[in-house]
């Protein structure tokens, strides 16, 4: 009789101690699970940010490499550092290169493009791309903010950004390049995103311009003298190729 009373008492519900213990265990498990989830979310966010940054960097480097490598024969690079009230904004211009940074479509019809690292508050740089509608950059030096033309912000927050050009004659790196007759042999970019441990350095090759002597150029013309090189068959039936007899530097 006594036993059945105890059994019915047990079945009627949980004791306070049991509820407290169960709650404590549940709380422990939940806090553990919550910590893991929170950690994984933070880690995921961090990985995404790192990957984003790496991808942005890789894309920028790739675009620069393509544009510098494919610099048109008549084009040249102009490297300047514009100073205004203590802030420096390095600029690399692709002068006379209508195909430079032609985004998506063919040549933009302009006279080239220029990349300006614009100082922003907090000691950062924003990298802007300006498509040059005319040859205005060569005529007068204007502060980047005063430039006209379509402006695209490529990167908003860079901790460091600088260019250098390699002078193949003097065999040294220089911070400005304004020689219209010659090209630098290489362009160096040093940049760091905000959050990077140290700036990263990239070197891009600038194809040299090999000017053919006039008599060699005439030899390349087809015999009838009507078709310019590259547009029609030559006397021997092969396609005319202006680089065929050129020095090795022409063939890239």
């Amino acid at each position: 009789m006594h036993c059945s009373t105890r059994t019915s008492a047990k079945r009627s519900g949980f004791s306070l101690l049991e509820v407290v213990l169960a709650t404590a265990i549940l709380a422990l498990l939940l806090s553990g699970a919550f910590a893991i989830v929170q950690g994984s979310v933070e880690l995921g966010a961090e990985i995404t940010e790192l990957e984003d940054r790496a991808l942005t960097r890789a894309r920028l480097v790739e675009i620069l490499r393509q544009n510098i490598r494919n610099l048109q024969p008549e084009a040249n690079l102009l490297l300047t550092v514009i100073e205004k009230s203590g802030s420096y904004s390095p600029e690399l211009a692709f002068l006379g290169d209508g195909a430079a940074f032609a985004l998506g479509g063919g040549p933009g019809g302009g006279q080239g493009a220029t990349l300006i690292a614009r100082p922003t508050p907090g000691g950062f740089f924003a990298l802007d791309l300006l498509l040059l509608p005319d040859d205005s950059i060569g005529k007068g030096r204007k502060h980047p903010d005063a430039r006209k033309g379509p402006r695209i912000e490529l990167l908003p927050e860079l901790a460091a950004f600088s260019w250098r050009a390699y002078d193949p004659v003097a065999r040294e790196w220089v911070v400005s390049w304004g020689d219209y007759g010659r090209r630098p042999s290489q362009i160096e970019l040093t940049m760091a995103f905000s959050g990077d441990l140290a700036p990263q350095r990239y070197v891009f090759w600038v194809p040299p311009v090999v000017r053919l002597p006039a008599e060699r150029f005439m030899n390349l013309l087809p015999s009838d003298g009507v078709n310019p090189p590259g547009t029609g068959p030559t006397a021997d039936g092969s396609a005319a190729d202006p680089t065929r007899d050129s020095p090795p530097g022409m063939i890239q």
Partner: protein
Amino acid sequence: MKADQKAIPARRARTVAGFLLLEALLALVVFGLAALALVTALQDTALAADEARAEQEAIDMLQSILDEYSKAPQIRAGVENIEEDASGIRYSVETALAYDLFDKNQIPLTNIYRMTVRAWLPNSLPGNKPDLEAETLRYALLYQN
């Protein structure tokens, strides 16, 4: 006999009433193991992402280093080690005359250098084979403008 009959339902009642401490601990251990596996998987994901990032960076740098060394006005044979960068990737550039190149008349080509850039990712040991490698050929008299 009577005492035995009374004892059995009493024990059953105790068993039904709640969990043993051992059961609770076992449950905790099982949950703990699951959590540990999850954390390990997360760590592996992070490591894989980091490795992929380092590899991408190394590929970009291989191209950059090749551009820098193979297009320089003057080249010289030898091995140059580039000190470790912020990501912990090490590089070396080897420049050597290429003896194994012939023209169509089987005459060896002269003044051609083979330039090889090698990269070791951060987790590779000093004696290991390089993780990435890129090479190009360079005619020595090019780019001497």
